[in-house]
């Protein structure tokens, strides 16, 4: 079922039941009227039959639905307010307040809800056990889980810069919470409210069924209680207990459907997947060229959708053995899409609509999944942006490096594996003694070196590096750039280096392709680009980086 179908079904069902509870009592007469026609089956004057004392089941049902909904609403509001106060205020205030509030929520969370409700409800004398008392008891036992969720979310929101900005501009605390934080919590509050309503209606039905419910109101639970006491089951009077049970089940289901959709709206990961076609729709005949290890010819990549985005347009590039090719461009220019497409790592809705990618005689776009698996990492490896954060935090470096070898070189002996892992770490300037370290024990620069080591493990001919140093500071960046140059000279692999930092590419690469809006606007040697840039965009990009040593004030 799609999101909208779920939401519609949920809303229609819940709406019908609410209408039934609101309008029904006005049409069905007094549910308490006792007649001398006990337990007649549905039909005639009594559409849903009568109870053992001759009361009209339909009339009882409408009143009971209204009673249950009212309790659900009361509890929903109270539990949401309680969870909001304890979750949001505690998290925003921090310090001792947060400690005390979360200790309290945690204690409430481990107290088993229903038994506590039974004890509390049983403790209050039956004649004082009104709707409000029961609702209060249910709210008090039902808010803690929601408070935990809200606290976690608020903790993340309170550190957002826009909250800091509101504080700097002098906003009062209550306004920061109500105006800046609360709106961003609305989806969660809504879903917690709906959940609290369902839980309240179910718990109240349970309580009433046990005879511990509100004395002054009739709910679906009290109906079931009387049906049980009147031996409805034994007398096969199904019309007495099936309808209230059905309404509870349908309303619970309807709200669950609504809640599910709220979840999907918030969580992008649950949104509908794009329609799946192949990742490669069409290719053009392969063009080979002599010294090239990687040739991209007239490649086009399109993000299919309501308005398709042509992310890579007719791109042709040649990477020679041992060459460093710089791919320069700003966000959204298609450079990362291009890199992914070369490796066939692009995911739907991205599609290669035409062109060819030839790697050392292999037509990459024609590989089947198994061939692709053997090709990737072995022949061509990749270092992603922020790769240093993609190491698994709970396993040591050794295990993560060895995994690669185990997958791609199953025949390798364990001592050879160990040797190879130590060797690549030495190559990137990390002490092999660190093999036993966990990622958090290494600095950002070291983790990035480990990622490069991992990309080197299988001696690939080409390495694609997507902004490998952007998250690092200049000193660490300098060390890693020197390392890449040295490794390239020693091992003679070729590199595609992607970054927005043109001066870095000018210093590092042999040739540079400048990309904008999916097109390569200029493709030449670093020296040509630096000394004789042809395209206006290249010149603009060059001018965007003031030289440290250039004339001062020239920019102003």
């Amino acid at each position, binding site marked *: 079922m799609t999101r909208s179908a779920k939401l519609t079904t949920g809303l229609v069902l819940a709406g019908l039941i609410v209408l039934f509870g609101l309008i029904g009592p006005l049409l069905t007469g007094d549910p308490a009227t006792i007649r001398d026609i006990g337990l007649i089956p549905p039909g005639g004057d009594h559409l849903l039959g009568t109870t053992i004392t001759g009361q009209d089941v339909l009339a009882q049902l409408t009143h009971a639905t209204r009673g249950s909904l009212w309790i659900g609403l009361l509890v929903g509001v109270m539990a949401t307010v309680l969870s909001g106060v304890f979750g949001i205020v505690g998290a925003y205030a921090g310090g001792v307040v947060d400690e005390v509030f979360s200790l309290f929520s945690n204690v409430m969370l481990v107290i088993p809800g229903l038994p506590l409700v039974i004890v509390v409800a049983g403790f209050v004398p039956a004649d004082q056990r009104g709707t409000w008392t029961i609702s209060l008891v249910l709210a008090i036992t039902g808010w803690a889980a929601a408070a935990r969720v809200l606290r976690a979310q608020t903790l993340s929101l309170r550190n*957002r*810069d*826009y909250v*800091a*900005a*509101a*504080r*700097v*501009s*002098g*906003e009062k605390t209550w306004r920061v919470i109500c*105006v*800046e934080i609360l*709106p*961003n919590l609305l989806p969660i509050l809504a879903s917690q409210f709906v959940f609290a309503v369902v839980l309240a209606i179910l718990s109240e039905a349970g309580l009433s069924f046990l005879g511990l419910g509100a004395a002054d109101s009739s709910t679906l639970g009290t109906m079931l209680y009387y049906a049980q006491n009147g031996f409805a089951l034994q007398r096969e009077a199904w019309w007495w207990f099936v309808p209230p049970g059905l309404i509870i089940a349908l309303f619970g289901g309807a709200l669950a459907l609504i809640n599910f959709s709220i979840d999907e709206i918030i969580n992008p990961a649950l949104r509908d997947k794009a329609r799946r076609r192949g990742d490669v729709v069409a290719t053009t005949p392969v063009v080979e060229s002599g010294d090239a290890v990687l040739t991209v010819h007239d490649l086009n990549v399109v993000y299919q959708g309501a308005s398709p985005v042509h992310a890579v347009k007719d791109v042709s590039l040649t990477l020679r053995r041992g060459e460093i090719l710089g791919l320069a461009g*700003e*966000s959204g220019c298609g450079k990362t899409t291009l890199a992914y497409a070369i490796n066939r790592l692009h995911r739907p809705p991205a599609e290669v609509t035409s062109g060819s990618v030839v790697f050392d005689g292999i037509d990459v776009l024609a590989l089947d999944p198994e061939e692709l698996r053997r090709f990737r990492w072995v022949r061509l490896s990749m270092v992603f942006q922020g790769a240093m954060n993609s190491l698994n935090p709970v396993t040591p470096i050794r295990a993560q490096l060895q995994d690669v070898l185990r997958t791609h070189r199953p025949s390798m002996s364990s001592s050879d594996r160990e040797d190879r892992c130590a060797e690549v770490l030495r190559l990137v300037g990390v002490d092999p003694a660190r093999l036993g370290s966990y990622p958090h024990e290494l600095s950002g620069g070291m983790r990035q070196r480990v990622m490069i080591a991992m990309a080197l493990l299988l001696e690939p001919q080409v390495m694609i590096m997507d902004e490998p140093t952007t998250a690092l*500071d*200049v*000193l660490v*960046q*300098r060390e890693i*750039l020197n390392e890449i140059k040295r490794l390239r000279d020693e091992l003679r692999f070729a590199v595609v280096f992607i970054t*927005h*930092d*043109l*001066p*870095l590419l*000018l*210093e*590092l690469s042999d040739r540079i392709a400048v990309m904008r809006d999916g097109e390569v606007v200029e493709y030449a040697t*670093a*020296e040509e680009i*630096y*000394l004789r840039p042809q395209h206006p965009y290249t010149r*603009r*990009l060059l*001018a*965007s*980086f*003031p*030289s*440290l*040593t250039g004339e*001062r*004030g*020239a*920019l*102003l």
Partner: protein
Amino acid sequence: MTALEVRDLCKTFHRHRAVDGVSFTLTAGRTVALVGASGSGKSTVARMIARLVRPTSGEITLTGPDGSPVPDRAYRDHVQMIFQDPFASLNPFHTVEHHLARPLLLHGRSRAEVPHLLERVSLSPDFARRRPHELSGGQRQRVAIARALAPGAKVIVADEPVSMLDVSIRLGVLKLLDRLQREEDLAVLYITHDLATARHFSDEVLVMHQGRVVERGPSDDVLLRPQDPYTRRLAAAAPNPDTRFHLGGSS
């Protein structure tokens, strides 16, 4: 004349000295750059000046335009901050109008000044109705600058104001800040890891390393003829194609 004096500022987080004895003065019409690598403590200094973080020790004193010290409750009328990430510093739920009107109202001004504020940062008045997701990174940062100007602040702390922006629009935003600084006689603290823009856009440079200021002085002196070994390493590490193609440069 408005001036902000920072004396012997220290901040300790869980026994780690993030900022250790930093002193400097911001005066109207001058830009001071605070440069350093990530983790050097420069953002913590910014957050202490913006009163988002309480200093462990040290003083921050603000002198108003009339030469007398500014009382605490009026501090935020005079000192404002521009955050690094314009994608995070605007609330996705609110319009540009809200972001500008709130600081105006909080500091005794009128909502009617919103179009004028937008104009000062070179945005047309119809931006007021838009929400952050409808703006580009550069436009967002202009809104953030307008928000900092809204209370009539004369001291602006700009914490890496362009490092999250696309390279081709960075200089435009820096030039805007520079123009505002000169036109409105602002005192600006420009925090950055980029030595080149620090040199071009500031009068004085302070280099921070592990919480301390290791070198300070007029920007050309510090960045072209660095004395401290750390500053030298920093200056040498920045990519510089000049050296590869044997062109100019002082090295």
